[in-house]
């Protein structure tokens, strides 16, 4: 059954500001942001560079490279390749660098290590 009766959330008593200040959480946040922000900038720049080329450099995009296949088609297909590539890269990065540390913090919180009444009970990296 669902939890529509809204039972008291196991995390209701957690002091999230305390968790936010732990080194481990800061590491998780840094790892996440230092991957997703630069990557977002890179793919957006690459996409807009492509759109600008298709828009304003028609001559360049129309150069035939092989048979009837021109630069525009190759760059377009490369957009597919980079999209698939970034996806695979992000998945592998998350599995290695984000998921384990996120699971640790989650288990500690759910194990009541950050309850508001009293400080860290045990084990949490301060």
């Amino acid at each position, binding site marked *: *059954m*669902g*939890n*529509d009766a809204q039972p008291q*959330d*196991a*995390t209701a008593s*957690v002091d*999230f*500001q305390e*968790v*936010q200040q732990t080194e481990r*959480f800061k590491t*998780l*946040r840094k790892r*996440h*942001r230092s*991957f*997703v922000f630069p*990557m*977002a900038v890179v*793919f*957006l720049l690459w*996409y*807009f560079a*492509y*759109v*600008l080329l*298709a*828009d*304003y450099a*028609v001559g360049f*995009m*129309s150069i035939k490279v*092989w*048979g*009837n*296949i*021109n630069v*525009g*088609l190759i760059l*377009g297909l490369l*957009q*597919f390749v980079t*999209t*698939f590539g*970034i*996806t695979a890269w*992000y*998945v592998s990065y*998350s599995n290695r660098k984000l*998921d384990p540390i*996120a699971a640790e*913090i*989650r288990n500690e*919180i*759910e194990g009541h290590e950050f309850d508001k009444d009293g400080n860290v009970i045990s084990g949490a990296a301060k």
Partner: protein
Amino acid sequence: MNTMVPAAVNVEALKDTTLLNMGIFALFVAVTMVIVFRASRNNKTAADYYAAGRSFTGSQNGTAIAGDYLSAASFLGITGAIAINGYDGFLYSIGFLVAWLVALLLVAELLRNTGKFTMADVLSFRLRQRPVRIAAALSTLAVCFFYLLAQMAGAGSLISLLLGISDWGGQALVIIVVGALMIMYVLIGGMKGTTWVQIIKAILLIAGAGVMTAMVLAIYGFNLSSLLGSAAEAANNPAILNPGLQYGKTETSKLDFMSLGLALVLGTAALPHVLMRFYTVPTAKEARKSVVWAIWLIGLFYLFTLVLGYGAAALVGAETIKSAPGGVNSAAPLLAFHLGGPLLLGFISAVAFATILAVVAGLTITAAASFAHDIYANVIAKGKADAITEVKVARRTVLVIGVLAILGGIFANGQNVAFLVALAFAVAASANLPTIVYSLFWKKFTTQGAVWSMYGGLAAAILLITFSPVVSGAKTSMIPGANFALFPLSNPGIVSIPLAFFLGWLGTVLDKRREDPAKQAEMEVRSLTGVGAEKAVDH
């Protein structure tokens, strides 16, 4: 290979296949109805109704996302655009695909971890509930409305081709039937039934497009270059292989294309019906898997449409396509008829219908959930409504939206489908995306910033559209007789999206109130770790 002359497709012969089309479509409806009934037996709670009990796996949900996303505009619209305008049609599909990286990297997992049912859950998490929730619900309803209208309008033009019904009354009748079926799916099946419809449709659509792609490539000895050559020859215009045929005409049209590109790439991650799908999986990791599956399936599908579009240009011919009932949208069905005769046409037509049905169902449940959960339960009843009443309100909203969609579809019949969809993307990117990004990543973001950004983005997008050549002042406008097109571009994104980001920033720095830092900490910790996120519901 040029013996495959366009004349091989006889549009009149299509009418003989009407019964077959209807038969295959009826089979699809029967099979999905059985599944929806079976799936609905466990619909008891709000989490069941809105979020399918969070019981889908990442791969199932990813397939359903592809089903939700690959609308009739994608399949018929992009194939037709490539067949007529060549390379410029391909540009659409690239924007539609790359956009998924925004969802994957910045939105999907964090959203799954912080919300329950709707986009507004996330946006109002650490801000003041009422104003933010109302704004988010209104923009959800606006986006769903435009998207719905596009799908229903598309249904009309499809019908004229696929069922050979060309009179207005007959088409209206079919729109009513499509709408009524959709209402049944959503009323009975809730999110679980809707999701299964999406999954089945996605598999049929991608498989059908895959088979057609293989057939086209086989004709050209699996040589893409000779397919392109043949397309250029049939079009009698080598420029069909180069960018610029549609958007390169004037400086304004070039700028318009930039605007469209911006709206496409930033709109996807802000579409409420896509965002809601992330709540149907149990964890953030499954949400990530969903996006990965969706990216692969959608990417593969768009590669197919490239071949299908040029294949239609080469084998059917632009003139035949343009003069067929349904116009540009008929490229894919005509190509199916050319490749596999009535049987393949029947299959592809049924899939196209199923596409509309499934997308409309997904939009309807999103709009209903937003109304019932955000406006009714949290604003009108101030959080005191019980879940049973909330679901009851959601079901009634489904009926209202269904009727509105049917009426809208009948009156929007014949309108430009691609424009309505691009409008939905522009509204989503302007009204929703800045607030989603700020509230997930900017500590200082405040309620005033959110409200300014959402209303400002929504109003700017809709106003600019109203005063654009889409509505008046051009031959293809909705009101061709009048001219109040003060804004030269058909897509407002290039103005309204940066404006909404700016307003979000301005509203925040001018806000004298500060938000609760404890809530910000809670949202940040929850979003990254998934602590306390509602898990799958066991039955």
